[in-house]
């Protein structure tokens, strides 16, 4: 006789299957664009890829694959801000995301993993997929994007990318939902996530006026949309090589302020792989031939300039900063979530020296 739990699980499984088969039906009914066998470069109205293929002719990547990692399930509380739909409630987020995205673009390959990357069991697999899950199996991925909502997951991604020398972009939205940021991290070259305490886009709200009792984080789909747009924009610039890729770009929704900057790696970072990457980067920099930056003076030609309009060079806000010291020297609008004092925090007795083995200590604990 099955238990109530087992029956609930079975109902959940059947519901999922029903959702999937309904989706397949509706796909066929709505004549969603079928998978294209061969991507054509021809510029034609009916060719949905003409613009993409124009990029292809410029020598850009031809195929795309997305690996998705998440360990949550879709629920109704997500409907205010994520792109899931109510009928997907109960599915794992990665599964639901794959369905929706595949309908939008059947030519992208997907690989989904519904697990918590911070546990020992899964972390090794996670690292393995980063280093071998590229478009060509066995090669690393081109870019990792972090869209998680907690410090622990970011640290785990940071640890993995430092160890693998994997370039990644981190993104986030604050707990009060009115600020967010994106950050490009190149292990050894830029600050990693552990190089400094978490950066915060200053909200110019008196923290004491924020009511916190009884609530956890707030969320606004609009803030998330902006940050997502900034992130994808930065990804496109990075992958396709146009514009300036921001190392750090903040978004302060209250004042519509977008502070940007770059932060160098911290030679005293707690993560030893970060320090190792920094050494390797320094070696590479020494060996690289110095590129002469040739200033090309462009002649601005106008018949007349009645209004006296001048072209003024844009002063870049980004400054390369050293992250050493208790509070990094940050531009206006960016601060740290907290500071770590240079001298040690708590002082007091440390654990005693003992010859007891781990097994003996475990047994002692059990007997208490």
């Amino acid at each position, binding site marked *: 006789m099955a238990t109530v739990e087992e029956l609930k699980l079975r109902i959940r499984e059947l519901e999922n299957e029903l959702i999937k088969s309904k989706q397949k039906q509706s796909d066929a009914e709505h004549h969603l664009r079928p998978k294209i066998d061969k991507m054509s470069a021809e510029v034609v109205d009916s060719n949905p890829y003409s613009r993409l293929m124009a990029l292809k002719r410029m020598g850009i990547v031809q195929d795309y694959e997305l690996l998705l990692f998440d360990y949550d399930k879709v629920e109704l509380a997500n409907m205010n801000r994520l792109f899931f739909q109510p009928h997907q409630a109960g599915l794992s987020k990665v599964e639901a995301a794959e369905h929706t995205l595949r309908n939008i673009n059947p030519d992208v390959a997907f690989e989904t993993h519904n697990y918590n990357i911070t546990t020992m069991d899964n972390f090794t697999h996670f690292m393995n997929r980063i280093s071998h899950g590229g478009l060509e199996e066995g090669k690393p991925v081109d870019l990792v994007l972090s869209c998680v909502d907690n410090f622990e997951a970011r640290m785990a991604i*940071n640890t993995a990318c430092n160890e693998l020398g994997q370039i990644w972009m981190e993104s986030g939205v604050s707990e009060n939902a009115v600020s967010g940021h994106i950050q490009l991290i190149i292990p050894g070259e830029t600050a990693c996530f552990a190089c400094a305490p978490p950066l915060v886009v200053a909200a110019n709200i008196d923290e004491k006026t924020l009511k916190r009792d009884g609530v956890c984080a707030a969320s606004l789909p609009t803030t998330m949309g902006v940050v997502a747009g900034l992130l994808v924009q930065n990804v496109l610039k990075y992958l396709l090589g146009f514009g300036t890729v921001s190392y750090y770009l903040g978004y302060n929704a209250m004042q519509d302020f977008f502070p940007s900057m770059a932060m160098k790696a911290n030679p005293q970072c707690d993560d030893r792989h970060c320090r190792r990457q920094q050494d390797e980067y320094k070696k590479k920099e020494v060996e690289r031939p110095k590129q002469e930056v040739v200033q090309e003076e462009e002649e601005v030609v106008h018949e007349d300039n009645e209004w006296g309009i001048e072209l003024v060079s844009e002063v870049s806000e980004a400054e390369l900063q050293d992250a050493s010291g208790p509070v990094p020297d940050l531009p206006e609008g960016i601060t740290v979530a907290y500071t770590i004092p240079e001298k040690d925090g708590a002082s007091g007795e440390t654990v005693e020296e003992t010859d007891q083995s781990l097994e003996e200590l475990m047994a002692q604990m059990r007997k208490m």
Partner: protein
Amino acid sequence: MADEATRKAVSEIPLLKTNSGPRDKELWVQRLREEYLALIKYVENNKAADNDWFRLESNKEGTRWFGKCWYIHELLKYEFDMEFDIPVTYPATAPEVAIPELDGKTAKMYRGGKICLTDHFKPLWARNVPKFGLAHLMALGLGPWLAVEIPDLIAKGIIQHKEQQNS
């Protein structure tokens, strides 16, 4: 900030020395020994102060921990199972303690029953890496959480006392 009683209890927990996580093989064993030493001392302190409120044990590798915690409210003893994994980035990041049976019963909880700690905890932990360990997590994380949430849940009638428990 933590109240006076919590601060005093924490100051009597020995600090840990080895900065290593579950991926560090030999050094992790050393860290585990220190974790157990600190936990044993903390439990002994609690017993002496007539406030023995939790037990913890781990799997052989020290990566999964589980146990029980108790809270006394109006002379009744409430017992809860708890568990947590050691994250790969420990001790830079603290484990997320979970009380599965309370999942969904309070807003101060994430999915799966992971307790939601106050803003003060993370900076405090970050400032004291690697000296804080699981005993400190109990004293600064789980303890205060129980003290706030359990009376509230009882008052709202969301949890009831099991008949078998006696104070």
